[in-house]
């Protein structure tokens, strides 16, 4: 099925919606009726057509509008893109990987032509056709990482590996669930995860770090994370918290279906070939409750998950003000029937 790119907004009038086909391929992250942190990593391999795993870098109907929203964020706050000076080789690694994956997955939209170090990149949805010298930043309009992450859905972090740790040393972060690259850049794995509750105590980060330090070239891994967002707003940054925080007080029983969104991060982690850094793609998917309940299995499961969340997670994810209203609304769609294992729709 060929992609039709939607024109929509993630701010002001919030016209973002998922088409019925896009709802079916939404990466619903709960494979059972409850949730707790775990090192839920699995190989990032291709999956069935019609799912977000059809290609390893997923491009969907929101591509063009998401890229426009990213450009708007950067105009207001260019600090959302930063890279420490020693990360240039990792920047080129990232550009190569994201161009190759997108061109391989969507040849009708992206083309990469390599002739030695002379590369030509064609991005039809965004109307880009650039020729540049691989390895020479002066031949691109932006640094390589900024250039390619302005053309890739999802936040892009590039993590350096040294001293038995991982370091958040470069990134493009405009669709984040309330963390600041500007504040966290240069931190190690434990430090940048510092504010996350519960997970440190149960050893999740120790195990995750050990696992990632051994990540192999050509064998990317993935995991899900999730939270909830009021209105389809991609930029829920701490920087702009005073702009989006008040949205959380606007949820009523009448508008739950339209306003409350499940926000899923599909995180994929890739070892990079020259720099030995790790590319960390945090792809954000949004779906409102009206869309969610069109899949009966998810309509049953999601209120059950919300009801059994530990209090620390309710607080950390910022759900306190509207969780109960959302459960009340969703429960109309839960007939109590058992749900099948796994996250796919039945």
């Amino acid at each position, binding site marked *: 099925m060929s992609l039709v790119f939607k024109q929509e907004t993630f701010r002001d009038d919030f016209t973002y919606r998922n088409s019925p086909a896009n709802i079916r391929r939404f990466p619903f992250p709960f494979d059972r009726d409850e949730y707790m942190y775990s090192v839920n990593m699995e190989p990032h391999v291709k999956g069935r057509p019609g799912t977000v795993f059809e290609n390893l870098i997923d491009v969907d109907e929101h591509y063009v509008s998401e890229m426009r929203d990213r450009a708007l964020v950067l105009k207001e706050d260019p*600090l959302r893109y930063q890279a420490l000076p020693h990360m240039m080789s990792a920047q080129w690694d990232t550009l190569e990987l994201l161009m190759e994956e997108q061109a391989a997955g969507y040849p009708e939209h992206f083309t990469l032509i390599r002739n030695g170090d002379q590369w030509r990149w064609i991005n039809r949805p965004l109307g880009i056709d650039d020729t540049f010298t691989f390895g020479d930043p002066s031949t691109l309009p932006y640094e390589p990482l900024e250039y390619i992450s302005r053309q890739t859905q999802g936040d892009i972090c590039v993590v350096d590996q040294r001293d038995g740790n991982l370091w958040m040393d470069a990134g493009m972060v405009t669709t984040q669930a309330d963390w600041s690259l500007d504040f966290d850049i240069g931190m190690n794995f434990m*430090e940048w995860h510092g504010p996350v509750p519960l997970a440190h105590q149960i050893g999740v980060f120790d195990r995750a770090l050990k696992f990632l330090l051994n990540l192999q070239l050509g064998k990317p891994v993935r995991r899900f994370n999730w939270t909830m967002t009021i209105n389809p707003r991609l930029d829920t940054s701490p920087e702009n918290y005073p702009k989006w925080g008040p949205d959380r007080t606007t949820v009523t029983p009448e508008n739950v279906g339209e306003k409350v969104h499940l926000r899923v991060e599909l995180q994929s982690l890739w070892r990079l070939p020259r720099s030995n850094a790790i590319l960390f793609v945090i792809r954000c998917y949004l779906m409102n409750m009206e869309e969610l309940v069109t899949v009966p299995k998810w309509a049953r499961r999601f209120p059950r998950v919300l009801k059994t969340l530990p209090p620390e997670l309710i607080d950390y994810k910022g759900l306190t003000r509207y969780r109960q209203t959302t459960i009340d609304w969703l429960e109309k769609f839960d007939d109590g029937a058992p749900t099948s294992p796994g996250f796919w729709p039945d």
Partner: protein
Amino acid sequence: MLVEGIKSRPVYRGLTLQRHARRHLFVLEGEGAHALLDQTDRLDETILSRSEILYVARGSQGKGHDQALQQLGADMFFTAPTIPTLLFRLKVSLSTAHMGTRLYIAGTEGFIGQAMMVALELGMDHASILTEHRGSLARRVQCVHCKGITDDVTQTPFTCSHCGLPLLVRDHYSRRLGAFQGVNIDAEEPGSAPEPEELFL
């Protein structure tokens, strides 16, 4: 109110003298002078002849720490009138330093953070720097919204000295900024900020 137990919070392990060092650079603020003065008995002539002491009195003005430090008889001694003056001198001392130089920093957290930033910018590894927290618990805080930095914060929430938002001081710390993170506490319901608590005296 305080978000506690966060892993990015620095640990200050104390100014343990590194006897094998070829040069010792002590950077001290206020009560941080005691981090060195308290171990005078361990300062032999070899160490002192290889030592440079930079000091800024700030809150300890008039307590005579500067004289006590001077009387140690280090190879070099400098009293700065303000932190920026001291940091400027530190930059010069470090940029002409040789291999085998050890950096020791003692004082309030905000001071340690700023001196550390100078060293990090010159390529020193943070793990090789010895630090000791002395004096007030006041924090240096970056407002995550306007990016302005407020020094000597003793309360949470406090009013950002730049944009005026009431900020919760989180225990999330950036070495690169030498500051804790301040986040608007009443963003969801403006005007609902709780009374400030003096937590960092």
